[in-house]
């Protein structure tokens, strides 16, 4: 659960993740089990939010963990935490799946879709549950601090899986404005979430002003 761990546990967990990745690279099939145990809950929570369908969400999880097994070298730890990489892959594949499944969903009753999305989820014991609640609160309040338009753009893209043009159509804003809102919103979230979202700036566009001369390009 690297994504919801207190900052002082992060490096220890990153190290544990790195060990798992090394075992997978060495061909240890049991390491996939351990990886799955570690990440199945946050991965499933994310996939089912995007897909609103438990079966499809499980297919996405299987696809994600199997592809880590197939090609563990796809992760490069120089670029960020394993947890964020894995959850980004879950997001990516779930969004692909929701786009594939849309025509199927079209046939379902729309009320049904609403109900699925609104249905309460089974509460489960979660490792470091208290901390998870703290993070959850912080994320909620960080989102609450964003201007509504930025929040809308980011939540539609992240939780809803919409493309920028779809977000533009949904919100009645020009595409360029949506792009700007997403960057500005991410900057603000990064600032608000600080340690929760990966600690110090890595030097990307979210960490501060753009480079004066564009020399990073």
């Amino acid at each position, binding site marked *: 659960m690297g994504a919801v761990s207190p900052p002082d546990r992060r490096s220890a967990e990153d190290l544990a993740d790195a060990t798992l990745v090394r075992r997978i690279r060495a061909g240890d099939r049991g390491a996939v089990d351990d990886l799955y145990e570690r990440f199945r809950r946050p991965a499933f929570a994310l996939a089912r939010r995007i897909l609103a369908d438990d079966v499809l969400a499980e297919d996405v999880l299987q696809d994600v963990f199997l592809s880590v097994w197939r090609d563990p070298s796809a992760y490069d730890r120089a670029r960020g935490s394993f947890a964020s990489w894995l959850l980004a892959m879950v*997001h990516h594949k779930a969004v692909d799946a929701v786009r*594939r499944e849309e025509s199927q969903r079209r046939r379902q009753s729309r009320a049904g879709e609403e109900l699925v999305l609104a249905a309460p989820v089974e509460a489960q014991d979660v490792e470091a549950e208290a901390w998870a609640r703290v993070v959850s609160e912080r994320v909620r309040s960080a989102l609450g601090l964003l201007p509504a338009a930025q*929040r809308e753009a980011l939540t539609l893209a*992240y939780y809803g899986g919409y493309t920028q043009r779809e977000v533009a159509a949904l919100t009645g804003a020009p595409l360029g404005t949506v792009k700007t809102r997403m960057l500005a919103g991410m900057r603000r979230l990064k600032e608000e979430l600080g340690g929760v*979202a990966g600690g110090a700036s*890595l030097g*990307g566009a979210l960490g501060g002003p753009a480079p004066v001369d564009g020399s990073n390009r």
Partner: protein
Amino acid sequence: MSGDPRARRGGDHALFDELAVGWALHSLEPEDEALFVRHLPDCARCARTVSETSEVMAALAADLPAAEPSAQLGDRLRAAVERTEQVPLPAPDDTSDLAELDDFDEPVDEPAPPRRATGFPHYEHVSAASVPTPTPWRRLLPSLLVAAAVVVILALGTWNVMLSEARTSAESAAQQQSEVLHRVLQPGQATIARLADEAGHEVATVVARPESVQVVTDGLAVNDRTQSVYVVWGMRDSGAVPIGTFDVDRAQMDLSTVGSSDESGLDGYPAYAISLERGRSAPPVPSDVVARGQVTS
């Protein structure tokens, strides 16, 4: 962009800062994605922006209700891992080499495409026989309500839906057709068969390569994928050989890739046929052939 303060401060890189966030969110339009994917391999700043965005996204995932997948999923995964081989590592235990690889050309059939590690999941083709990813526009209209539900549940605000349906469907059709063409026109030799229904109307074109078969459908009835599936058959004197299954999601032109990549000789038939079958898998022999045709080229 000259009037934009961000542009003055960041040079023309402000554009890429925005694209990096959109790319990490998997929300770019195809043309923006193409632009960014060319830029990213040479830009350390964008690679970091992608990583930072991914970290924030992971934090956002923490604000979801806890949920547990079924116990069977662990078993399924274990079984799948058991029968799956790893792609060969380019340089075992030497991660520094990974940075030299290029991640961004979409792999088609190669099991281990060269790539550049970016700290972000690389694109992987959906498995054979699954439906190609539709263009984003395709899902816009039916999704309005889903989006509404998402946002209402999050209690994060409201928005105005301002959308021209006519414009949407026109753009959608144009994009889909160009995608179909692009995928069919990939380099290499292909065997082509045009398939007609009983009334003689051409409803599908089979594009067969040794290891994959694509079917462009245009006018085949949409099937109910909970109850039926289309099957592509290779026809020879000794009988019909099932090649793969696909679904038709729309009556307009659509492209499906069928057939497994570890088979070969899929292009070796003098004729092809499509049947509509009950259930979700190919029977030993076709039951209801809806289109057939000889190889024409």
